[in-house]
């Protein structure tokens, strides 16, 4: 059995950042590759099904990045999300390099996961209804939280920007926004259950 099987993703990243033993580092990288090679390749295969070599190259590049940045991996909060972000960057790089070639197909416009509003039949009315629902739910929350959430989500301000404007600590703003989101999730889950009843 692999000694790192029991490690969580976060632990794997932290250990890779801290260890100085080449053998351990290799083992950790091997474990990360084992866990994520297939999901990452799956995503690529769904997006660019026509170029197997390109897929291999992009996945390789992701893990090369992991190895190169191994000393900073301890600060990564969500390794899985981070890997997907790296994959996205590597895909963009690959597209830039592929541009001008015949086989290049711009798949970014059909990637509705990243930009849902690109969907040709995007239901604007339904979306507006959902937003209003969220706004109504937020309206009943404490002022500090409500303001922080509104500024962050609806006005698109950064956490640092809100902290500066509201004269608050950044962590406090983060907490306010996080709590609102948590409450909203609870509310909508509860609402669904009530709806089911």
């Amino acid at each position, binding site marked *: 059995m692999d000694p790192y099987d029991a490690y969580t993703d976060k632990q794997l990243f932290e250990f890779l950042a801290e260890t100085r033993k080449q053998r351990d580092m290799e083992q950790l*990288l091997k474990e990360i590759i084992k866990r994520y090679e297939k999901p*990452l390749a799956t995503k690529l295969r769904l997006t660019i099904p026509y170029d197997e070599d390109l897929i291999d190259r992009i996945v390789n590049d992701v893990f090369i990045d992991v190895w190169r940045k191994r000393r900073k991996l301890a600060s990564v909060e969500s390794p899985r999300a981070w890997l997907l*972000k790296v994959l996205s960057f590597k895909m963009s790089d690959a597209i830039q390099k592929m541009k001008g070639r015949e086989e290049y197909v711009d798949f970014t416009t059909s990637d*509705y*996961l990243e930009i849902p509003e690109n969907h040709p039949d995007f*239901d604007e009315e339904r979306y507006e209804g959902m937003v209003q629902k969220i706004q109504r739910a937020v309206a009943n929350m404490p002022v500090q939280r409500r303001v922080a959430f509104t500024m962050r989500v609806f006005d698109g301000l950064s956490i640092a920007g809100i902290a500066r404007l509201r004269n608050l600590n950044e962590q406090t703003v983060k907490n306010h926004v996080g709590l609102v989101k948590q409450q*909203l*999730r609870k509310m*909508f889950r509860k609402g669904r259950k009530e709806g089911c009843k």
Partner: protein
Amino acid sequence: MYNPTNIKKIIRRGLDGKMTAQDAAILKSARMIYEENELLEMEMDVLEEMAAEGPMDVLGQQNIDARAIIREERKQYICQLLTGGMRVCAGIAAVWLIAWAAWAVNDWWSERTVPSAYEKLVVAGSRIPSSEFACTVYWGNSITAVGKESSGRLGRFGDKELRRRDNGELELVQLPSQFAISAGHQPDIRVVTGAQQQCAVWLPDGSLIRLDAGSSLSFPMEKRGTPNTEISVAGRALIRVREHADQHPRTVLLHTPNGSLATQEGEFTVLASRTDTRVVLLDGRVEGQFPIDEGHRILTNMGDQVTYDRCCTDAQGNINMTLSEVTRTDPWQAVAWTTRERNYRNVPLRAFVQEMNRTYNLGVKSVNCIPEEKTITASIHFKDPVDKIYGYIRKAGLIMYESNGMISFCGPEFDPGRIRYPVGIDDSLDLMDVLHGRDLLAAVLSNQDEKRH
């Protein structure tokens, strides 16, 4: 609706390309409730599920080798280092090149824009335009006549090329060493100006020599083992030597028929004939060495002048040589010959005739017969014909006698073979005892001629 399971289903449909319009609206609004990382984690969960259940045989086993990744990263790192190093080197080279170019442009610009002492002294409008310059360049058996219309490359002398700049000045350019002729003695390059000609020559070291009419410049082809530039000048010239940025300062040595002048940075005029040398400093510092005891002089201020005169032979056959102390003079007078219009107001007639003799090559034998006290007032344009000069000289009361293309102010020449004994003088007497003065002899000759006819 915003249940993680539901969101994952939407993500799955999105990955499969089956996302509906409603899904898109829910996913977009879900971003208000979930953090980006949370949505990405959900996506990763979906991808893991798909990878696990998928019939993609190619994904059945691990393809990527961790060691290969490490090797590849190392390779990329080294490539980056090399590329970075090359960029740094290229950057340093570019900076060096730019600095060098800036220095060269600055040097070139200052050479052309920072006015020299002469340029401050004589405004451009009153100078003889350099487009009028003409001269003849000799090198060994080759003769290159440079006229007003000459332009561009005029000739190549060994490893030096003669060009005429657009402004009319000549330029001796040092060619690369492969043009050098190693065998045999290399003759000097001689630049000679004739009557009513002037010429300016830039030497390879950046020095500028401007020659007046009837002057010559000799520039040696061979390096004589020193980094110094050695040139010879006869006649009248304006010399400008700029200081070099070299680590070791270079000296320009100027030889005249009587003595030599040395400068590292200086601007001065020199009037050098067979018998005398006069130097007037315009700028910088010039050291002169003349063939006389204590013959060293240093000129440091504008208008400093020194004159060396080798004149006359005394009864014992000794040559009299005099070297003045450093005196002050009007520097403008020293460069008046470079102007379009020369105005002479009550100047000694001897000096005027000497000057015109140099400019127009009149062929004056000697000015000793011109009375010293006579003066002249005249205005001469650099394009005036020689007849105008003759007119001025006659107007000043001088009678010119021409013989064999030479002009004398000492009366008609006589041929000793034609001397006849005057009437009434015994043939046995020595004529030298009875004849006194040239006029008397001329009268005797004319008398005899009359008698014979």
